[in-house]
């Protein structure tokens, strides 16, 4: 039996670590849940191009030769041959070139794609791909704070998240068995929020422990690497880095001409040498040289972290396997451990089951932090009540507004920036920059709105904004299909239709929450920050019937409302 004073101490620790980190963790978990569908979102946002099907795999050798001849930098840095035909692969062949920069300085890259014209000549075009999915991932990893501060900030948040988890478990231990899976929806709102918080926290505890550990390590990897460099390796870590990068390094060209093996034949050779390996794309280097090589990133089913950095390297002339030490089944224990570590954070293994499981667990994590704040607010109301209705303290009102503004602002901002991918394409010069502008404008505007209107009114308004913004995702696709003159697109693949379908369901959920919250602010206890009535307006308020999703409703309808 744990002493009551110890439980009380850990409860305080749990409350304050949760309150201080809750906003950042909500954003990280909500955006992280969407990141599980990074590729479908990227495909949804990518305009139709000439496509992989425009050049058959049999015609790929000619295309590769033409690109290598016309773009020597691509020949050296690598020409990517796409195999799958997804919408975010603009053509059969793509590559990156360095943007103009000063020698030795950090620089950006420009992206090219190429295809064959009907007459067999080369058509190459510089076009920046949609970075929408990367931007959502950036929000997930650094809540939008620029590097390196974003990583440091999230590292500290992840550490505190771990403290909140441990303290939460200790607080829960005395009643763990008795209240396991209990979710009592009723008149006692504090009880309901506590149950709603505990069910998710306890059921998904292993997931949260894994996330706390891996996100701390990933956020602090840069500084930890630097400390290791000076304290442990004494400046010799570069040697290890070099060894680590060796499997990805292509053989140097020898200056003798070589006949390239066609990609289809290379894939057959690969199938013979690594039968369980599923290639994703091929990167050719030094085409035309006898030492030309092709790196083939891909997955091996059954391994945690099965796709991250994994791959093989073949001779592009003979098809002989040159390097395969980054392939999951061939990785050394060090690399396997780090890939497993990363795979556990990113949910990179198995396939659809784990993608959907991480998606739901990510959303439940966002709900955990949102619900945690609601629980704190409800607890403060109960404590302040002392027999009669009272005005809520300033801190409670501010936390309520911040919870609504930050959380719903993040949701609406992400939805609208996804919608912007189709509406703004071809209408603005730098769409990727506009994704950032749209997100931050909506996010900051929502926060300001929540503080201006208070938690109760803004919760309803912003939930409707979330509903409208999320519903705009499938509606945009529908409009694109019905009105081609709008110059947008409606892809027909299952992955992109899936994005629209999930967004539609999400919009319905937000609508339901908005309706429930409308009832709550009208009919709920007037001494709550979730009420638009003033405390004392009603002599004997009924405790509301709680609604999950941020709302609740009384069974009697009050007549007088102060607006």
């Amino acid at each position, binding site marked *: 039996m744990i002493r009551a004073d110890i439980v009380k101490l850990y409860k305080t620790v749990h409350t304050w670590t949760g309150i201080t980190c809750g906003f950042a963790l909500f954003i990280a978990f909500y955006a992280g849940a969407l990141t599980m569908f990074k590729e479908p979102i990227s495909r949804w946002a990518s305009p139709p191009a000439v496509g992989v099907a425009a050049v058959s795999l049999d015609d790929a050798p000619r295309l590769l030769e033409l690109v290598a001849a016309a773009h020597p930098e691509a020949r050296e840095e690598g020409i990517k041959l796409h195999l799958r035909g997804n919408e975010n692969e603009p053509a059969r062949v793509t590559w990156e070139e360095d943007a103009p920069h000063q020698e030795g300085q950090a620089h950006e890259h420009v992206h090219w794609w190429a295809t064959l014209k009907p007459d067999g000549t080369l058509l190459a075009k510089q076009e920046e791909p949609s970075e929408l999915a990367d931007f959502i991932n950036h929000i997930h990893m650094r809540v939008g704070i620029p590097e390196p501060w974003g990583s440091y900030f999230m590292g500290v948040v992840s550490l505190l998240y771990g403290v909140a988890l441990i303290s939460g478990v200790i607080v829960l231990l005395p009643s763990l068995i008795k*209240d*396991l*899976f*209990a*979710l009592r*929806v009723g008149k006692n709102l504090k009880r309901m929020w506590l149950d*709603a918080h505990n*069910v*998710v926290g306890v*059921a*998904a505890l*292993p*997931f949260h422990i894994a996330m706390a550990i891996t996100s701390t390590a990933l956020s602090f990897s840069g500084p930890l690497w630097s400390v290791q460099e000076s304290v442990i390796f004494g400046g010799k870590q570069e040697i290890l880095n070099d060894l680590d990068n060796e499997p990805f390094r292509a053989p140097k060209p020898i200056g003798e001409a070589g006949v390239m093996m066609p990609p289809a034949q290379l894939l057959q050779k690969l199938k013979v040498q690594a039968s369980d390996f599923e290639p994703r794309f091929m990167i050719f280097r030094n085409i035309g040289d006898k030492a030309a090589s092709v790196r083939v990133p891909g997955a091996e*089913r*059954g*391994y*945690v972290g*099965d796709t991250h950095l994994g791959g093989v390297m073949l001779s592009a002339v003979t098809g002989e396997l040159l390097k395969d030490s980054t392939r999951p089944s061939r990785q050394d224990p060090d690399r396997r451990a780090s890939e*497993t570590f990363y795979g*556990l954070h990113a949910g990179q*293994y*198995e*396939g659809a*089951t*784990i993608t959907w*499981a*991480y998606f*739901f*667990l990510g959303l*439940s994590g966002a709900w955990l932090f949102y619900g945690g704040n609601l629980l704190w607010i409800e607890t403060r109301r109960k404590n302040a009540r002392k027999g009669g209705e009272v005005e809520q303290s300033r801190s409670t009102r501010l936390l309520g507004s911040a919870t609504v503004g930050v959380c719903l602002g993040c949701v609406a901002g992400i939805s609208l920036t996804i919608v912007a991918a189709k509406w703004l394409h071809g209408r603005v010069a730098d769409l990727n920059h506009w994704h950032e502008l749209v997100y931050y404008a909506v996010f900051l505007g929502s926060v300001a709105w929540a503080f201006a209107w208070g938690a109760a009114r803004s919760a309803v308004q912003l939930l409707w904004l979330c509903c409208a913004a999320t519903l705009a995702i499938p509606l945009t696709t529908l409009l694109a299909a019905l009105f081609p003159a709008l110059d947008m697109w409606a892809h027909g693949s299952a992955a992109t239709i899936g994005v629209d379908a999930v967004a539609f369901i999400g919009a319905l959920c937000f609508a339901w929450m908005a309706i429930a919250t409308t009832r709550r602010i009208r009919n709920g206890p007037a001494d709550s920050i979730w009420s638009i009535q003033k405390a004392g307006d009603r002599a004997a308020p009924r405790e509301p*019937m709680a*609604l*999950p999703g941020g709302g609740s*409703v009384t069974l009697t309808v009050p007549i007088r409302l102060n607006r």
Partner: protein
Amino acid sequence: MIVVLALTLTVLGCACLYLANPNQQWLSRVPPRRLLLAAGCLLLVAGLAAWIAALRPLAGFFVALHVVMVCLFIFPYSAALRGFARKN
């Protein structure tokens, strides 16, 4: 096919475990709890074995664990939502 079997076994195992808990809100009358608990454990072990057969031990374990986690928070919420819908 084996993935579908593994998923079915795991979800059914979780359903039995949830029903065996005194706080379950799915049924007003439930079969003997010990029976449900034993059935749940057996189904989960079978599900884990199927996941491992479909993948590899480590990946199989983690997939099974994550499916269990999702089921164990969705089931109480589904029961609460159903209860709420009935009251309204």
